């Protein structure tokens, strides 16, 4: 296990190194002045320019510049946003929790619905139920997410008026930001309307969560179904059946646990796709998360922010990926050999 962890750690280091190299080179690849791309300061007076050039070592070799860049990253100096002239790191700190909140609920939903449906589909893959579930999943992962979101908004919020069309909370409710996670913050806030606000937040969450959960749910269903079918063929299941255990008992004691193991790994692998979808979902539902922030930065030609957003999202994806892999390995010693 230690050996495995060390190997992963080394890989993480390599990947982070490559990532920082990519982010650094973007400073030069983006149109405009590299100094402005790195610092994000809009008005660079000659004196400031000279100071920054020295501090960023832009008059030295690329290697030296890169080291200075790493040093800044390490010390939390990620530059300013070109648009707002605020430190990027503090802006990211404000938007990142919203994204994490939304994606975790979506993952939770996809887990809650995907696993049972996948099992259902595996019981009789050629039966009606299996076929119906199959059709839904194929349709589900062919849906263009932005169109699907528009459809739901048109029907459920504009048409029926059941849900709000966007945002995290009714704007008249003022909830101080403590953790950045809306439901937690509402819980912490001292307000007489707490219950009403909490329900309002849930209503705001409903549509984006459904939209974002659509794709991972379908993937989960198919994955669980395939895993179940595979496990079902294993010898130990046959043995269990031969021992006279009922179908349900076999399913619960032997099948499920072995089939669900790869599902943990699957969460990590799907996370990258989930973040992509979250970006689009956030744009459509005006969800103040990092995806919307990043896309706004692109419309604003806010290059320092794009650079920082790339790094943060990639690190997030890599971390989740690693964590699930480690978890998976922890539960499944066989995987350590690889």
């Amino acid at each position: 296990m230690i050996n495995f962890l060390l190997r992963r750690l080394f890989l993480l280091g390599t990947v982070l190194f490559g990532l920082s190299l990519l982010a650094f080179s973007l400073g030069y690849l983006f149109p405009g002045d590299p100094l402005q791309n790195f610092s994000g300061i809009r008005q660079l007076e000659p004196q400031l320019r000279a100071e920054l050039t020295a501090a960023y070592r832009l008059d030295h070799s690329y290697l030296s510049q890169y080291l200075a860049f790493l040093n800044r990253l390490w010390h939390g100096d990620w530059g300013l946003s070109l648009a707002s002239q605020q430190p990027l790191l503090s802006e990211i700190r404000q938007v990142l929790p919203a994204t994490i909140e939304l994606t975790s609920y979506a993952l939770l939903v996809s887990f809650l619905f995907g696993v049972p449906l996948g099992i259902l589909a595996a019981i009789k893959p050629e039966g009606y139920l299996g076929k119906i579930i199959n059709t839904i999943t194929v349709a589900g992962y062919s849906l263009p997410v932005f169109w699907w979101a528009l459809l739901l908004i048109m029907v459920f919020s504009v048409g029926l008026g059941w849900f709000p069309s966007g945002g995290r909370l009714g704007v008249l409710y003022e909830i101080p930001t403590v953790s950045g996670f809306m439901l937690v913050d509402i819980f912490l806030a001292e307000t007489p309307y707490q219950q009403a606000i909490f329900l309002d937040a849930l209503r705001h969450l409903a549509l984006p969560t459904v939209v974002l959960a659509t794709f991972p749910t379908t993937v989960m269903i198919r994955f669980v179904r395939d895993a179940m079918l595979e496990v079902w063929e294993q010898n130990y299941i046959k043995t269990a059946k031969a021992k006279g255990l009922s179908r349900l008992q076999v399913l619960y004691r032997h099948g499920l646990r072995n089939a669900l193991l790869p599902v943990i790994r699957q969460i990590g692998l799907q996370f990258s796709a989930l973040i992509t979808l979250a970006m689009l979902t956030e744009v459509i539902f005006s969800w103040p998360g990092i995806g919307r922030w990043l896309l706004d930065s692109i419309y604003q030609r806010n290059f320092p922010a794009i650079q920082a957003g790339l790094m943060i999202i990639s690190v997030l994806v890599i971390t989740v990926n690693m964590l699930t892999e480690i978890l998976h390995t922890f539960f499944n010693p066989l995987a350590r050999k690889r």
Partner: protein
Amino acid sequence: MRKFRLYFEEQHRSPLAQLWREFARQHSALFGLALFSSFLLLSLVAPFITPHDPYLQADNLLLLPPSWSEQGLVQYPFGTDDLGRDLLSRLLKGTTFTFGLALVTVIGALLAGLALGALAGMSQGMKSSFFNHLLDLILTIPSLLLAIIIVAVLGPGLANTAWAVSLALLPQFVHGIRNAINEQLKKDYVTAYRLDGANNWQVLTRLIIPNIWEKIIVMSSMALSTAILDIAALGFLSLGAQAPIPEWGAMISDSLDLIYLAPASVAIPGLLIFAAVLSVNLVGDGLKTAMQRRRES
């Protein structure tokens, strides 16, 4: 004339024919194939069959409703947009941009991926492990994010979108092809062929490629559905196709302002994207199932 068969004869269908038989057994896959072929055909002939010029602004026919509503005109089956352009013609033309372009980007990425994947697969040691890590890095970045970054560097536009999507798809191909080749290299018949004196090139072209092409097609089908979705998403975000190009995603974002007045102008392009991706996925799924069943039979 039917031949009288006395002895039981093992059937010797070619693998391709077996594959087709298994494929054709699945109704959904056949349906997907039909849909796919029609999109393919449309994307080729679209410029010649549009009933009107998709860019022509008829300023006396603004926001004409579809022909099934009372105020519609038969000449404009889906109506016109708010600049008086025929929606049907634009949608047809859009097939070339969304579906056709996606196909081109996938083929481009596939060819490059084949070259790089072969290079990586056939080489071993330090080079290979470095390459592996580099791929791991790029694979962690979501493809749409990668495409967005590339567009941010190159600037928005349809051609840049194609480059971006192509580049974003490349790592998957390299990774997949490299793994497939590695798997093949371990097979005994490769060793045998090598012992016969075959060099790397011969092993690759005569043994490996013929054995992995089906996998490549499945891979391509997955890439194609990603490509369509990404091109449409970039168009929707106004980072891809720019006005007045009738790319489906861009058409949705163009018509978004009219969603209450002319819901069809948002619904139909979306439906087409959905159908296009669905057709690709159905074909891909069908192929996968067919390959699996062939192996089992």
